[in-house]
């Protein structure tokens, strides 16, 4: 569904040359929920913006359903971290969700249907007439999710969407995303810096190295499909996986792949799909 091949992004400006992403190759299958984790400042956001067609990569390409992404594709929706700056404060919740649909030239009745359905899925039917700034942070991010859902995307890109909400709201939103993913069969690429969140949500976790970014490791999360905050997070398997991801990220910060640490040996043997791209020495 989503193919990233040899992606490289170099920012050049005022005599400085910053290589944000060096060489990224990975694929996301249709209907998969993949989490991207990495140390802070590792170019996650750059990667996601390249994938969403908001930035042009320096080299390499992104394919959506086999077709190269050159601008924001209609089959892709974005949920940004900064919900307060991503929703339009001059529009009511309903209109915020509806505006992208008007651009898609859908009929008014179809638009109303999609808006009502999306708001219901995120539990905000009653807030349709409110302005975004009248809602709490978590509710605002729900509106942003509803807007993405109503857009009927094949792929949903989420850029650290819950980094700015409190822990309890965050747990609710995580369950919401997993629920929506299971119901609707959308392909989701979820970027986060929170290791627990990545393991809890993802079917697969991609661990990125520090900038210049490469894929450090790909890890399949073999937790049961039905997850809940209470039990999943205390399951021994969850602890193993998160420990492993944590170690990988620590290793990424030091700039190397750890060589078969005792605690994670079985995890590595059983689960680790080797990264397509070898980390830089």
């Amino acid at each position, binding site marked *: 569904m989503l193919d990233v091949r040899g992606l490289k992004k170099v920012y050049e400006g005022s005599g400085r040359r910053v290589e944000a992403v060096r060489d990224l190759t990975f694929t996301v299958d249709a209907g998969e929920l993949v989490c991207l984790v990495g140390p802070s400042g590792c170019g996650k956001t750059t990667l996601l*913006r390249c994938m*969403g*067609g*908001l930035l042009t990569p320096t080299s390499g390409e992104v394919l959506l359903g086999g077709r190269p992404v050159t601008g*924001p594709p*209609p089959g*892709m*929706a*974005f949920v*940004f971290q*900064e919900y307060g*700056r*991503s929703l*339009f*404060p*001059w*529009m009511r919740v309903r209109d915020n969700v509806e*505006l*992208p649909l*008007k*651009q*898609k030239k859908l009929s008014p009745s179809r638009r109303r249907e999609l808006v009502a359905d999306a708001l219901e899925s995120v539990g905000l039917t009653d807030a349709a007439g409110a*302005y975004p*700034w*009248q809602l709490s942070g978590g509710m605002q991010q729900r509106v942003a999710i509803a*807007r993405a859902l109503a*857009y009927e995307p094949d792929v949903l890109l989420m850029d650290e969407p819950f980094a700015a909400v409190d822990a309890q709201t965050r747990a609710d939103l995580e369950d919401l995303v997993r629920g929506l993913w299971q119901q609707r069969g959308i392909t989701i690429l979820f970027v986060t810096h929170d290791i627990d969140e990545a393991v809890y949500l993802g079917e697969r976790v991609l661990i990125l190295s520090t900038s210049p970014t490469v894929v450090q490791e790909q890890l399949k999360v073999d937790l049961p499909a039905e997850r809940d905050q209470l039990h999943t997070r205390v399951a021994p398997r969850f602890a193993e996986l998160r420990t492993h991801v944590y170690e990988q990220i620590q290793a990424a910060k030091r700039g190397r792949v750890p060589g078969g640490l005792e605690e994670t040996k079985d995890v590595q043997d059983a689960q680790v799909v080797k990264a397509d791209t070898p980390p830089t020495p």
Partner: protein
Amino acid sequence: MKTLALRLFFVLALPLLLVIAWWFASDSSTDVYWPPLRTILTTFPDVWTGERLRDDVLPSLLRLLAGYTAAAVVGVALGTVIGSYRRVRAVCEPVLEFLRAVPPPVLVPVIMLFAGIGDTMKIAVIASGCVWPILLNTVEGVRAVDSVMSETARSYGITGSARLRHVVLRSASPQIFAGLRQALSIGIILMVISEMFAASNGLGFTIVQFQRSFAIPDMWTGILLLGLLGFILSVLFRLLERRALGWYHGLRDTSRRSS
């Protein structure tokens, strides 16, 4: 009900006090140029009859409306273009700063050369003065559109005229309105000034006529009327702004409460 009465009291207290002070200070005045307020107020209905309102006040207001509207359209349109493109801005900015610094009244003689002494001249004078605050504020507002909002719009395919209408202009509207508000008071000033130079009717013309014919109380009534007019226009503007920027005031109150 009680709070409404209290608010009304606060709004009216100072104006009333000033009028009373004026009333008593001028009460025993025998100075020709400084007539008692009582005389001015009794003259008022005699001077501003229906006929005068139609022949002098209405033309003035229509010219103000025409000039102001032209300035708003040109200012917002040009400001949007200049604000959207960095290159255009770099080219235009020095020129804009210069043109803005030229006091609009000095343009009256110049514009008279080109546009004659008719309505066109007066409308042109009003528009040429009003356009700057609107233009410069629009440039700032358009330039300051939030980067996340722009990216959101782009990623959801909101481009072209829809982006302009639903995102850029709405996001810049608080600044545009600030410009429009400044322009309104400039417009009233220029309306009067343009009529003082060369005119056969209008408020400014009438006031100058009264002064030249030593109809001093009549002149004072004209000044009072101008003040009232400015006040009414600003109230109307505030009502319009409240409607258009309701979201902005709400947003600001919310973020102020939470910080």
